[in-house]
């Protein structure tokens, strides 16, 4: 979306610049009020509601570089083991991940 915005508006905005206001309580307040106004406009004063929970992954918590390094290290270990003739199915799958991984 940000790329499209940059092309259309000719304004180059890094994604971090957009993410920073997420921490601003005033931004939260503005979004919250917008939410309340939309609900009011839709006439949802009384509601038949339904609720549930879902989970999202926070992949950014796992640093890409260290993750890739981890995979490489694992593959190295497996290769060393193969040289010693200790090959197993589990270790083969580790090599497979290394070959086709990120």
């Amino acid at each position, binding site marked *: 979306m940000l790329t499209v915005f940059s092309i259309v508006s000719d304004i180059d905005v890094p994604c971090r610049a957009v993410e920073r206001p997420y921490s601003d309580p005033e931004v939260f307040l503005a*979004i919250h009020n917008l939410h309340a106004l*939309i609900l009011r406009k839709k006439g949802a004063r009384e509601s038949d509601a*339904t609720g549930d929970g879902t989970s999202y992954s926070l992949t950014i918590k796992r640093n890409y570089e260290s993750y890739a390094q981890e995979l490489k290290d694992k593959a190295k270990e497996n290769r060393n083991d193969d040289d010693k003739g200790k090959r197993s199915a589990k270790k083969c799958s580790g090599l497979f991940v290394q070959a086709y991984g990120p």
Partner: protein
Amino acid sequence: MDLKTKMYIAFGSSMKSEKEDRAMMFLKTVDMKLKSVRLDKYYSESSYVSRFDKDTAVYIIPKKDATLNGSQKWKDTMREFVTDTYQYLKEYYKRENSEAGFSADKKLFGWEIAQRREDRVDRAQLTIEL
């Protein structure tokens, strides 16, 4: 989620459990009266049902080891489940709208949130919800 408009009414996020009740706290800040609410088995507890207003009908499937211990609202909910099961389940299964909503969100905005800080994760989610 409001069944009529298919809009999210309240929202909350947590790093630990969905039971942390942030959505209920959010709900209090929005000028909205709940006529009825459908929740999954995870919320099938007397204490949770009691948090809703007296006038709010709660549709919930009792857990396997459920008892009648608890508030009058919980007892009334269980009575309705036993006496008019078909109608109760008919209402309860409107809950699938929530699942469909989450599914559509994830397809549209992705399965992951690229934020590290808890407050930013919450705000990013709120924006998606809006």
